[in-house]
């Protein structure tokens, strides 16, 4: 194929020339104001600004937990407490000879990372509200332990906070120290947000099953985020102790914890600049209205309620100008199946996906009753049948959401039913869903890039520090995702927020995301539902070309025409059993099928 005919149109350039520059602009403005603050603000504002920096160090890390991963961690003040006391006690020499405050701060970071995992661990097992309550419990317990452990922490009397050596011992010197730490935290979290890890976190938040189908291991990723977030919270604690100059358990209230949490939500989920502004806003707000200080938590709570009910997108949505431009209203999806060869490459390790005697009942209902199914590479296998005949259930057995009571699903000698959900992506099994599972607040391109998460080579730490492999991964994923988007015909929408798209477009985005895996097997769950006749025809051509490139396709569908047009082999299910199986021509003339289902 001539490569020059397969050029991919780039995403439309943004307002400020390059998208990277326009994304960095708000940060640059904030950085300039913060760096020049001593020139136009008095000493009192210096204290406020220092406090905002310290709060942001915590909130930046917490933002990955709350804003990106969507975990309702309300009691993060527990980690601030741990960090503040670890730093203070080590620097003051309460238990062992006093050590350098910077060393104490670093140790506090390590202790905080460990505690972050302990506080976060229940998130892997518990539902949302349960987890929220446990973090609240941790916040209460930590304060009580500090009170009781008077020999080390000074109990209710407290301990002096650490004093950092010159030049950080003056007020503005300490401000610049905190500003530097805050800037580094901003940079690191922005790196994560723009990496495959950040996208994976939003996928866990908004589309958990899609994340698993893309091979994202939730436990491992959340652990890394809790480690990082715990460390930044504890470092914020050390700086907080120094800022306070003397700390008692009273300083670490639930109200403070709620402030961090609310700052992030006011800022907007899945954004860095929004929560940053939210933190600054909540720190500064009480200063403008002295009589309101007592009412500050009340006001934060009112703000939170207002945000949740009226503007769930938060500040970030207000600032998102480019997604307010109207989209073309009569846009068409024009897939380019010719690009698939370049995208999918040659599928060398062709093998057969085999279901043998699979049986699954829900209570007394036999959803699948001894089903045999063989899906060959390079073929489209249609699965049809009336509602409740077990089509989607079969798909979910292959994907691992249901464990069959009998029989096995095997690929390359691996028994699928014994694998964790996310391991299937590593065997190059991809799928789409009956209801599209999309991260609405992320761009179309980012949604597609989620599909390629497991093909990145860089580690979490490499992304955190923006090391070369991080850039290589990003470039590779972006290129493949643009190719996949072009193949399904949506490349002109790459930069648009996914929740602005039409239903039919979301179906094609899901296919593009699945193609990112270069799947050996692709499971499509009613991909034609809600599509126009023309779109169904184009979908059919796309699926045929996918199979021509060596991928085995399992197509669950109600549109009989589509099935008979493109399938090599069709299985008809009824009440969880195979009613008929064969070529489309055989099925079309199968008397029972015609009577029961096609209504010939």
């Amino acid at each position: 194929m001539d490569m020059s005919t397969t050029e991919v149109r780039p995403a439309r350039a943004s307002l400020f020339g390059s998208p990277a520059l326009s994304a960095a602009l708000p940060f640059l403005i904030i950085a300039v104001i913060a760096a020049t603050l001593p020139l136009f603000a008095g000493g009192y504002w210096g204290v406020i600004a220092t406090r905002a920096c310290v709060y942001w160090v915590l909130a930046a890390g917490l933002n990955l937990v709350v804003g990106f991963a969507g975990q309702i961690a309300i009691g993060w003040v527990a980690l601030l407490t741990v960090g503040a006391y670890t730093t203070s006690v080590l620097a003051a020499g309460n238990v062992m000879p006093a050590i350098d405050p910077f060393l104490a701060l670093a140790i506090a970071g390590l202790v905080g990372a460990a505690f972050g995992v302990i506080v976060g661990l229940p998130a892997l097992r518990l539902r949302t509200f349960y987890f929220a309550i446990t973090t609240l419990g941790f916040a209460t317990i930590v304060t009580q332990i500090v009170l009781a452990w008077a020999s080390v922490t000074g109990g209710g009397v407290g301990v002096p906070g650490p004093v950092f050596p010159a030049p950080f011992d003056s007020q503005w010197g300490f401000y610049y120290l905190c500003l530097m730490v805050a800037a580094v935290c901003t940079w690191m979290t922005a790196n994560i947000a723009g990496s495959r890890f950040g996208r994976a976190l939003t996928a866990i938040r908004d589309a958990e099953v899609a994340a698993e189908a893309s091979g994202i291991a939730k436990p491992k990723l959340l652990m890394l985020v809790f480690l990082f977030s715990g460390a930044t919270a504890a470092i914020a604690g050390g700086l907080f102790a120094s800022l306070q100059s003397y700390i008692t358990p009273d300083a670490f209230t639930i109200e403070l914890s709620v402030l961090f949490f609310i700052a992030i939500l006011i800022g907007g989920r899945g954004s860095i600049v929004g929560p940053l502004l939210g933190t600054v806003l909540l720190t500064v707000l009480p200063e403008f209205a002295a009589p309101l200080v007592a009412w500050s938590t009340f006001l934060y709570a009112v703000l939170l309620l207002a945000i949740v009910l009226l503007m769930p997108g938060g500040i970030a949505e207000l600032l998102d100008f480019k997604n307010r431009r109207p989209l073309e209203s009569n846009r068409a999806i024009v897939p380019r199946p010719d690009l698939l060869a370049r995208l999918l490459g040659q599928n060398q390790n062709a093998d057969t996906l085999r279901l043998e005697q699979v049986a699954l009942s829900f209570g007394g209902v036999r959803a699948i009753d001894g089903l045999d199914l063989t899906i060959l590479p390079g073929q489209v296998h249609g699965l049809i049948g009336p509602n409740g005949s077990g089509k989607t259930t079969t798909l979910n057995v292959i994907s691992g959401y249901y464990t069959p009571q009998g029989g096995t699903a095997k690929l390359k000698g691996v028994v699928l039913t014994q694998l964790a959900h996310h391991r299937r992506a590593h065997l190059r099994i991809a799928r789409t869903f009956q209801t599209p599972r999309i991260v609405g607040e992320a761009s179309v391109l980012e949604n597609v890039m989620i599909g390629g998460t497991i093909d990145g080579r860089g580690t979490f730490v490499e992304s955190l520090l923006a090391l070369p492999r991080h850039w290589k991964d990003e470039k590779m994923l972006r290129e493949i995702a643009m190719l996949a988007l072009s193949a399904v015909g949506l490349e002109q929408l790459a930069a648009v927020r996914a929740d602005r798209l039409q239903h039919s477009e979301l179906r094609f985005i899901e296919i593009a995301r699945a193609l990112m895996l270069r799947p050996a097997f692709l499971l499509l769950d009613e991909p034609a539902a809600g599509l126009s006749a023309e779109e169904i025809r184009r979908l059919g051509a796309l699926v045929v070309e996918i199979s021509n490139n060596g991928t085995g396709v399992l197509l669950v569908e109600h549109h009989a025409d589509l099935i008979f047009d493109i399938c090599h082999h069709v299985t008809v299910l009824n009440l969880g059993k195979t009613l008929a199986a064969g070529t489309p021509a055989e099925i079309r003339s199968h008397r029972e099928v015609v009577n029961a289902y096609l209504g010939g």
Partner: protein
Amino acid sequence: MVLSIVLSGLAIGSIYALIGIAYNVMYSASRVFSFTAGTLGMVGGILGSLFILRMGMPIWAGFLLALLGGAVLGVVTEIVAVRPVLKSLDQHLYVLSTLALALIVQQFAAIEWSTEPQPFPRIFPIERNAFDQQFWLPMIACAVTLVGLEILYRRTMLGHAFLAIAEDNYAARALGLPERNLRMASFAIAGTIGALAGFAGGQMLLAFFANAPMLTFYGFVPVALGGMGNNRGAVVAGIVLGLFQQAANFLVGGIFASVAVFTVFILVLLVRPEGLAGTAVGRRV
């Protein structure tokens, strides 16, 4: 000594159980856990003290008005923090909206009432003795509530409608049940039960704004351990929690009692996330 541990354990456990039941009643009607559950208890205590001690009302009037206050807060919770976010239950916005409302009420109480615990009136003018009214009032309140709810749910048409909503929201609506009104009624009942907990336990817990987060946490423990939506389980788990906490209080001191309760809570949940009496629910894909 053992007697006083058992009595105070049963009493405080009954209060936790009542808050747990308030959680359950709201959950059954809406599939929402509300952070306002403990706030309802705090409101019952503060309103009782406000009406009877500060405003000098008769005890029965103060009692009824305190319950009414709880019911109103329950309905407000439904209208302000639950109904608007029910459409997108899977986004868990209710956690945030109910938390915000709970904080609003709690902070308002702290500022307008007091940040210090205030005295709560004695309900019956009888001599103090070992088995004092401060212990048996919460127990009676808990027993009456449990029996009352059982009769409501099993014997009355209204109760059957509540159960239908709890069992299958869509089917109930398709049958023509006024789902929204039933949900508001449930929240009013939950509010009344929560306020009853605070009023009956007022002599133990006093009229104190910080009872809100405390009850929100300790009232949720019986729900989590007893299985959500299961009132009998909540009462058993609540009383076990109360006894365990008071015993630990006496044996190892208050702070480590809280640590012990919390540790047991976390460990049980990590081993059995669906609670000791609950059954696991599959997810829909």
